[in-house]
C-alpha cells in the first residue's frame, strides 16, 4: 500500500466513524455546537496521526476519548473563568471518560445517535444551504475546506454558514432526539430532501479525479446508505437510494470528453453502470412490492424503466406515462407535470404533449423556467415545426443557469438552423 492509499483508507474510516463519535459526545455533553467542534478537532488529529503511527486498537473509542478530552478542557477553562468571576457552579460536569463504556456498548445507541444527528442537521428551521453544509460536516465528516471547495465559496464564508446553522439549532431549541409520532415522517422527509439536494449539486462537480474526495453525488449516496442502514423498512429511504443509484449509473454517459451534455436518448448505454442499475432496480422492486408508495419510489421506478431499456427506442413509455400519472396525483409539482407531458408526447404524439405544456404554462407555476421552453423545443422539433423549435431552444438557452445545458440548447438551435438553410 502506498502512503496515499493508507491516507485514503484512514479518511474513509474516519468519515464512517464520524457520526457515531459525534452522537456519543453530544449525548454525553449536550452542547451540540461545542461537541461538533471538538469532534472535528479529533478527526483532524486522527487524520494526521494515524497514517504515520498506525491505527489505534479501538479507533472509535480513540476519537470519542480525544473529542471528550477537548470538551472537558473547554468546560474546565470555562468553569475556571466563571469561578474567577465568583460564579457558583451548580452542576457536575461529565469528567468521566465516555469512551470507557461506549466502546463495549450495544450497537443500538449508536444507531439512535446517528439518526438523531441526521434529524438535527436537516431540521426544517435551517435554510437548505445551511442544512446541506451542516450535514456534510457533522454527519459526513467532511472538513469545512472540502465543503467550501465543493460549493466554490471561500472557506471563511462556509465556516460562518455552519456556525450560523449551529446557532439556529441552539436558538430554536432543536432537541437531540428522534422525533416521535406524526412529526417523524415530516422530519424524515426533510432529511431525505437535504440528501437529494446534495446529490443534485454533485452534477456540477462530478468530473475529474481531483474532485473525487469531495464528490457530492458519492457523498449523498453514502449518507443515504447510512440512513437506509438505520431505517431498513422505510420505503421512501429505499426509494431515494434507488433513485440516486439509477441516476448516478448514467454518470459516465451523461457528458462527452469536452464536458458537453448528452441527453438520455443519445447516451451510449454501454457506459452505464450495470452494477448500480441492478442494485437500484432490486431496491425499488422490493419496496414497491410492499404496497405503500411515495414520490421517491415512483421517481426511482421511472428511472428504472429508462435504465432497463437496451436502446432509447425500446423505452417503455406507456409505463413511464402511467407512473408519472400516479406521481402527479401524489405530488403537486409543476416539474412532475412537465415530465408527465413529455411522457404523454412519447405515447400520444408531440401535439398532445404541447397541449399539456400549454396548460402548465397557463398555470404560471413554471414562469421564467427554461424547462418549459426546452420541452416545447423538443416537442416542436418532433412535430416538424423547425422554426418554432429553434426559437424555443434559443429561449431556453437564455434562461438556464447551467453552462453545459446552455451550450447544449444553443447547439440544438444551431443544428436545426443548419438543416433549414
Amino acid at each position, binding site marked *: 500500500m502506498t502512503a496515499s492509499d493508507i491516507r485514503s483508507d484512514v479518511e474513509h474510516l474516519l468519515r464512517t466513524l464520524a457520526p457515531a463519535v459525534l452522537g456519543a459526545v453530544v449525548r454525553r455533553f449536550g452542547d451540540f455546537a461545542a461537541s461538533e467542534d471538538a469532534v472535528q478537532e479529533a478527526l483532524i488529529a486522527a487524520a494526521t496521526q494515524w497514517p504515520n503511527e498506525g491505527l489505534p486498537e479501538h479507533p472509535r473509542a480513540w476519537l470519542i476519548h480525544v473529542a471528550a478530552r477537548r470538551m472537558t478542557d473547554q468546560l474546565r477553562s470555562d468553569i475556571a473563568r466563571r469561578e474567577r468571576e465568583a460564579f457558583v457552579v451548580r452542576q457536575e460536569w461529565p469528567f468521566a471518560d465516555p469512551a470507557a463504556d461506549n466502546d463495549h456498548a450495544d450497537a443500538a445507541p449508536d444507531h439512535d445517535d446517528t439518526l438523531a444527528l441526521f434529524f438535527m442537521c436537516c431540521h426544517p428551521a435551517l435554510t437548505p444551504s445551511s442544512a446541506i453544509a451542516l450535514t456534510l460536516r457533522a454527519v459526513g465528516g467532511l472538513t469545512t475546506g472540502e465543503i467550501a471547495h465543493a460549493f466554490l465559496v471561500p472557506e471563511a464564508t462556509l465556516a460562518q454558514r455552519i456556525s450560523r446553522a449551529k446557532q439556529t439549532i441552539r436558538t430554536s431549541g432543536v432537541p437531540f432526539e428522534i422525533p416521535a409520532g406524526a412529526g417523524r415522517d415530516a422530519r424524515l422527509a426533510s432529511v431525505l430532501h437535504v440528501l437529494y439536494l446534495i446529490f443534485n449539486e454533485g452534477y*456540477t462537480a462530478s468530473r475529474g479525479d481531483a474532485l473525487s474526495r469531495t464528490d457530492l453525488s458519492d457523498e449523498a449516496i453514502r449518507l443515504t446508505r447510512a440512513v437506509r442502514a438505520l431505517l431498513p423498512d422505510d420505503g421512501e429511504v429505499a426509494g431515494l437510494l434507488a433513485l440516486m443509484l439509477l441516476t448516478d449509473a448514467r454518470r459516465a454517459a451523461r457528458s462527452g470528453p469536452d464536458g458537453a451534455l448528452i441527453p438520455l436518448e443519445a447516451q451510449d448505454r454501454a457506459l452505464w453502470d450495470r452494477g448500480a442499475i441492478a442494485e437500484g432496480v432490486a431496491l425499488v422492486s422490493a419496496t414497491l412490492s410492499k404496497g405503500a408508495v411515495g414520490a421517491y419510489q415512483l421517481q426511482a421506478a421511472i428511472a428504472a424503466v429508462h435504465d432497463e431499456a437496451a436502446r432509447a427506442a425500446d423505452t417503455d413509455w406507456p409505463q413511464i406515462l402511467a407512473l408519472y400519472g400516479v406521481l402527479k396525483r401524489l405530488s403537486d409539482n409543476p416539474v412532475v407535470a412537465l415530465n408527465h407531458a413529455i411522457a404523454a408526447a412519447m405515447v400520444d404524439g408531440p401535439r398532445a404533449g404541447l397541449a399539456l405544456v400549454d396548460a402548465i404554462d397557463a398555470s404560471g407555476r413554471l414562469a421564467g423556467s427554461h424547462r418549459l421552453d426546452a420541452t416545447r423545443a423538443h416537442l416542436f422539433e418532433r412535430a416538424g415545426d423547425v422554426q418554432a423549435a429553434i426559437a424555443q431552444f434559443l429561449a431556453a438557452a437564455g434562461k438556464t443557469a447551467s453552462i453545459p445545458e446552455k451550450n447544449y440548447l444553443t447547439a440544438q438551435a444551431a443544428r436545426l438552423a443548419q438543416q433549414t438553410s
Partner: protein
Amino acid sequence: MKYMLMMHAPKEGWTTAGIGTWAPKDIQAHIAFMLGLNEQLKAAGELVDAQGLAGPEDAKSVRARKDGTPDTDGPFAEAKEFLAGFWIVDVDGAKRAYDIAATISAAPGKGGAPLYMPVEVRQVMSAPPTEQ
C-alpha cells in the same frame, strides 16, 4: 444559488458631484457602510467575493489586433454609467439577492442621503443541468 451584483455609478457629474467632492465624514460613512455590509454578508455565510473598482478615469477597452497584440482604447467620456464595484453572493434565492442589491443601492452618499444607485443582479451560471 450565486448572483453577481454590479453597482453602477452615474458618469455624469462624476468630477463635480462624485465621491471626491463629498465631505470627509460622508466618505467615511459610505466606506463604513460598505465594509459593514461585507462583514454582514460574511457572517451570514453568503459572501463569495466583493471588490470595488478604481475610478473610470483610466478605464481602457481592449481589443486584439490581427496579430493578437492589445489595442487599447478609452477612457470613454460618452458613457452614461460605469461599473463601480461588484459582489458575488451565494444565497438561497433571487429574493435575497434583490434585498442585498437594494441595501447596496441605498448606500449613503453626500450629506448621508441614500445614493439609489442602480445595481444589476445577474445569476452566476453554476446550476446543475436538469435531467429527465
